[in-house]
């Protein structure tokens, strides 16, 4: 149950996670559907889009909106690898390590990124900009090697191209 001690304070924390109009829109959908749980991924995705990741409070908010318990949301949230239950950098980089990308230099891409960013797979740069995450096939096998930053796809990667992309994102972050 979500009722822990200070209820209204908690609601305040949660409201920071989504805009009121987003919460209201979900509440309306919940009221309309016979099976509110079907909205759980939509909701988690929206919380993640707004906050960069899904915190414990995010799970609790989702549970509250859907009228289920936090563990019921957590069971689902922890299954999917694109729901981040830990903080990630502003640009989570998913490097494809599946067969087609591997066959066309995916490992080099991954190594290069680790060197350039001075982090290992699974880590976040100290400036909080980048997190490196290996991922399975991104559906861009014809444009291997490939990666996805946030939800943006990058294919036919070369080392030079990679450096350019990273530089560009660093610039973007400054501006």
């Amino acid at each position, binding site marked *: 149950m979500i009722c822990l001690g200070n209820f209204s304070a908690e609601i305040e924390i949660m409201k920071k996670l989504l805009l009121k109009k987003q919460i209201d829109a979900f509440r309306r959908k919940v009221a309309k559907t016979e099976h509110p749980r079907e909205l759980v991924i939509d909701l988690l995705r929206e919380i993640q889009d707004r906050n960069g990741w899904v915190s414990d409070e995010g799970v609790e908010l989702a549970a509250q909106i859907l009228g289920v318990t936090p563990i019921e949301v957590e069971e689902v949230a922890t299954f999917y*690898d694109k729901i981040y239950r830990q903080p990630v950098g502003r640009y989570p980089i998913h490097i494809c390590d599946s067969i*087609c990308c591997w066959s066309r230099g995916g490992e080099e891409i991954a190594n290069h990124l680790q060197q350039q960013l001075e982090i290992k797979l699974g880590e976040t740069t100290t400036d909080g900009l980048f997190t490196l995450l290996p991922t*399975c096939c991104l*559906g861009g*096998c*014809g444009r291997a090697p490939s990666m996805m930053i946030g939800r943006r796809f990058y294919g036919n990667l070369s080392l030079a191209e990679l450096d350019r992309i990273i530089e560009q994102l660093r610039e973007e972050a400054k501006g």
Partner: protein
Amino acid sequence: MNSTPQLLFKNRVAGQTIFFKDYCKTGGYQALTKALKTMSPTEIVDVVKASGLRGRGGAGFSTGLKWSFFPADAPRPKYLVCNCDEMEPGTYKDGELLAADPHQLIEGMVLSAYALNADVGYIFIRYAYDQQLRNLQQAVAEAKKAGYLGKNILGSGFDFELHLHGSAGRYILGEETALLNGLEGKRPNPRLKPPFPAVRGLFGRPTTVNNVETIANIPHIINGGAEWFKDLARNPEGAGTKLFGLSGHLNCTECFELPVGIPLGELIEDYGGGVWKKRKFKACLPGGASTPYLTAEHLDIALDFDPLAKVGSRFGTAGVTVFDDHSCMLRATLNLLQFFARESCGWCTPCRDGLPLVCWLLEKIEKGEGTNEDLEMLKQQQQQITGRSFCALAEGAMGPLDGLLRLFEQEVIDHIQKGECPF
């Protein structure tokens, strides 16, 4: 260079998406109009059955036959679910199709739903297909506005409501019952069958799950007729065209719409531009990561379900990944197995604990630390996992392992004897 009649890719222009107006210009929604006005649902099912269309999601089950098992007269709601999880490495055809021409799928969905008398549809889209999801959102809005979706479509009295579901990553969601759990917001472990989705599917109601390409083919079959569709294939038992996604060590790694039954060699040479770096063809995955390898001796084989089954492989999704003669097939197989082990849903033992054990063995041998006992153990693992997992994921994982042990055993032995990777 491609002389095949283009159905699914007829509107495709690289780097562009065509929407409602352009889709209609080339005959879009005519099949739906025709069907709703002149055909009964059972007629559609019969045409699809006669067309010989087989599921494009990998299993290749006859679509018409599957539909004929659907309890069309059961009370509502009944669901039609389109599977666009497409997470099997080497497979990217559905993504290409939706990037180019999303309305085809919408038209196909309405037609299929009409044939099945289903009133609610879902299109399930993987996380990485963000562009495709947005294309579909626009297409759905357009179709609704034009009266092709919603209540009383084209005055036929048929209602169909279509939802889009963006997922959050995981290959197992492609398995149809796991997908249904995912749509319901439950943990997406596969379900025990029976009962099959046609009996108890989404929210416990009759449901049919079909692949994107399968459904996108329906308008073309309605327009062109069963005979025409069947004759598109190059081999006598085949039917229709197929989206072939090329990848790996080829000069050209693109997706082509080609006749079912096209020989492997022709695909590689004429469309893939031959093996890259002037190297030789060593092997390929003919239909995605779960299909056993083909080698140079198979270059003449017609790419279709039955001919491939005869040589111990599978047509799968027709995502063809080619390996040149510099490739270590043991290393490739390890990569594939790591994928499957990581994507296991964690429900059943052979997959959850067996696949990591296989990876451990492959890794050990690849590093040159393997023994003959390890090779024996690897063979045992392949035999014990095949056919004994809860769903077909682990079964699929055994495809490449089977290929490795059957076709490249000597390569494995070389690793053991040399104490290092020979490549």
